[in-house]
C-alpha cells in the first residue's frame, strides 16, 4: 500500500508549523490517490494534534530525538517507511533538520529528493513536483526514477488545514533511534521583537540601497506602526546591517504578506523567490527600471530618505483618524 509520510520536527516542545502545512499538502495528494497520510514525530504528546491536522497514522518516536541532527533520525524514518509502506516522504526545509535529512534519506535509498518544491501533484500514481531553479528565474517540473519519492518545502509554501479535533487516527510507537556523529555544543537564538517575519501580514523590507544600517530604525518604526515585521535583502544582511534570520529570498525566508513594502531593493530573482507570493507589493526605489518596481502594485520613484519620513508621518495621521 503506498502512502505519504510527513516528517514532523519538534522544537521547544512544539511541532513546527511547516509539518501542518505538509499534512495539508499530503491530504491533497491522498485525495488524488496517493494513499493514507502518516506522520513521524518525536514525543507521544504531539500525536493527537497531528491527527487533527490530517494524519491517518502517527508514528511516535522517542522524545529524545527532538533537536537531534539528521543522522540520528534515519533509523526512525526507515522504520516508519517500512511500517507504513509510504512511497512519498515530505519534509520541511529547515536548517535544523529537513535540509540535511532529506538528501541523507535520498542517498541512503539511492533515490532523489526534490528540495524546496512549490507544487505537488499525482500523475499516474507517481509524484510530479514543481520547483524554482536558476535563482528563481526558471521553474522545473520533475518526476522520480526511484520507488521512493522525497520532496521538501520551505515553511509557508502550503496551507495547513484547520485543526479538526473530531478526526481519528492510529498511533503507533517506533523505538528505533540512531546516534548522531555530530554533537551540538550550543545554540544562539536571534530573538525578533513583535510579529514573526514569516507570520507577518505586513513586511517592510530594506536593501543595499538604504546606504547605511541606521536606516533600518526607520523601517522598524514603520513596521511597528503597521503591526508588521522587518525583512532585508541578502545584500543588506551580508553587509551586517541586519541579521540573516531576517533575510527574505531563495536562501532566506519565504513570506507572503498582504502588504510587502520594499525599500531600496532592486528585486533580483533570488530576492523575488522569497516574496513574490505577497498579495500587494509597494516599491520605493530611485530606479524606475528596477525589477521590484515592475513587480509592484504601487511604486514611488524617488530617494527613500525623503519618501519614507513623509510616508510614516502620513500613515500615523491616517491611523490616528481610525
Amino acid at each position, binding site marked *: 500500500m503506498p502512502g505519504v509520510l510527513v516528517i514532523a520536527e519538534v522544537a521547544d516542545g512544539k511541532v513546527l508549523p511547516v509539518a501542518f502545512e505538509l499534512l495539508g499538502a499530503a491530504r491533497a495528494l491522498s485525495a488524488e490517490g496517493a494513499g493514507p497520510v502518516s506522520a513521524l514525530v518525536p514525543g507521544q504528546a504531539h500525536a493527537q494534534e497531528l491527527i487533527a491536522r490530517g494524519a491517518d497514522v502517527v508514528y511516535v518516536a522517542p522524545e529524545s530525538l527532538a533537536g537531534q541532527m539528521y543522522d540520528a533520525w534515519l533509523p526512525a524514518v526507515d522504520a516508519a517507511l517500512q511500517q507504513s509502506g509510504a512511497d512519498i516522504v515530505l519534509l520541511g526545509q529547515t536548517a535544523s533538520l529537513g535540509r*540535511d535529512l532529506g538528501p541523507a534519506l535520498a542517498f541512503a535509498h539511492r533515490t532523489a529528493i526534490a528540495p524546496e518544491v512549490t507544487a505537488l501533484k499525482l500523475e499516474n500514481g507517481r509524484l510530479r513536483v514543481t520547483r524554482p531553479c536558476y535563482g528563481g528565474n526558471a521553474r522545473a517540473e520533475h518526476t522520480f526514477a526511484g520507488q521512493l519519492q522525497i520532496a521538501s518545502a520551505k515553511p509557508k509554501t502550503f496551507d495547513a488545514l484547520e485543526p479538526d479535533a473530531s478526526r481519528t487516527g492510529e498511533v503507533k510507537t517506533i523505538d528505533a533511534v540512531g546516534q548522531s556523529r555530530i554533537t551540538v555544543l550550543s545554540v544562539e537564538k536571534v530573538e525578533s521583537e513583535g510579529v514573526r517575519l514569516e507570520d507577518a501580514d505586513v513586511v517592510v523590507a530594506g536593501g543595499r540601497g538604504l546606504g547605511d544600517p541606521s536606516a533600518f530604525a526607520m523601517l522598524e518604526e514603520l513596521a511597528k506602526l503597521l503591526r508588521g515585521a522587518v525583512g532585508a535583502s541578502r545584500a543588506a544582511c551580508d553587509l551586517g546591517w541586519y541579521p540573516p534570520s531576517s533575510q527574505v529570498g531563495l536562501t532566506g525566508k519565504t513570506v507572503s504578506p498582504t502588504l510587502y513594502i520594499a525599500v531600496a531593493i532592486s528585486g533580483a530573482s533570488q530576492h523575488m523567490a522569497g516574496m513574490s507570493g505577497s498579495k500587494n507589493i509597494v516599491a520605493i526605489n530611485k530606479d524606475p527600471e528596477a525589477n521590484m518596481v515592475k513587480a509592484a502594485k504601487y511604486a514611488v520613484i524617488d530617494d527613500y530618505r525623503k519618501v519614507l519620513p513623509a510616508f510614516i508621518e502620513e500613515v500615523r495621521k491616517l491611523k490616528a483618524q481610525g
Partner: protein
Amino acid sequence: MNIIVCVKQIPDPETPASSFRVDEAAKKVVPAQGIPPVVNPYDPQATEAALRLKEAAGGGKVTVISLGPESARDAIKHALAMGADEGILLNDPGFEGIDNFQTAVALAKAIEKVGQYDLILMGRAAADWDMGVVPMGVATLLGIPCVSIAKAIERVDGKVRVTRVLDDGFQTVEAPLPAVVSVSNEFGEPRYPQLRQIMLAAKKTVQVWNAADLGLSADQLGEANRWLKLEALYVPKVESKVEIIEADSPEEKARILAQKLRADKLI
C-alpha cells in the same frame, strides 16, 4: 591538514531576468550572450575556508575538484590562484547533462581516488539548480558526517567545529574527521587572487580524470540512470501592472501612496 574542495562552474546567477532564456524543447538554459559562466559563488568561500584552515594548521594540501566541461578548468584555476595546491577536472562526454545526484556519485569516486583527506569543503548549493544535495550525497556515499550551512569552521582536537546558520539564529556543532562541510555566504568574502598568484596558478597542473578513471561507465551516468527526471523547464510569466505614483515632490508622493493604501484597506 589535507582538504578537498569541490567547485562547480555555472551560468552567472546574476544574469538579469531580461537576459535569461530557456529552450523549453531541449529543457536547457540558453547561455546568455556576453555573460560568461562563473564559479558558483559559494565555492570560492569554501576554498577560502580551506586555505584558512590550512594556514591555521601550518601545513597540508588543498586539492580542488570540479566536474564539468573543459571550461570548468577556469573554476579550478580560480581556486589555484587563490592558493589551492592541486586541481583535478572530471571530464567525460558521458557527463554531459549529468544531474547533481550522479555528480555526487562521481565526486565521491574521485575523492576516494585522491585518498588522503581530513575534510571536504563544498558550497551550500549550486546556484543553477539551487538544490544543495551534493555535499550530503558525497558524505553519505563516503560514510562520513555532513555539516551544512557553515558560517565559521575551526579544527579543534582532531575534530571540526562549525557554526551553522539556522532559520532563527546560529548553532555550533562538532563532528569527527573526516567530514563534509558546506559553506554559506555568511562565511564572508573570499580572498581575491593577485596578479602574481594568477600567473603562478597558470603553471600549476590540472589533472583530468574521465569516467573510466573513476570506475564509472558512461552508461551509469546516462539519462536513463538519472535519479530525478526533468519533465519540463520554463520561465514563469510575469506581467507588470505597476502604478507609478506621480507628484511634484517626494513628500507628496509619499502622502498619495499612504492614502491609496488606506483606500485599498491595506493599512
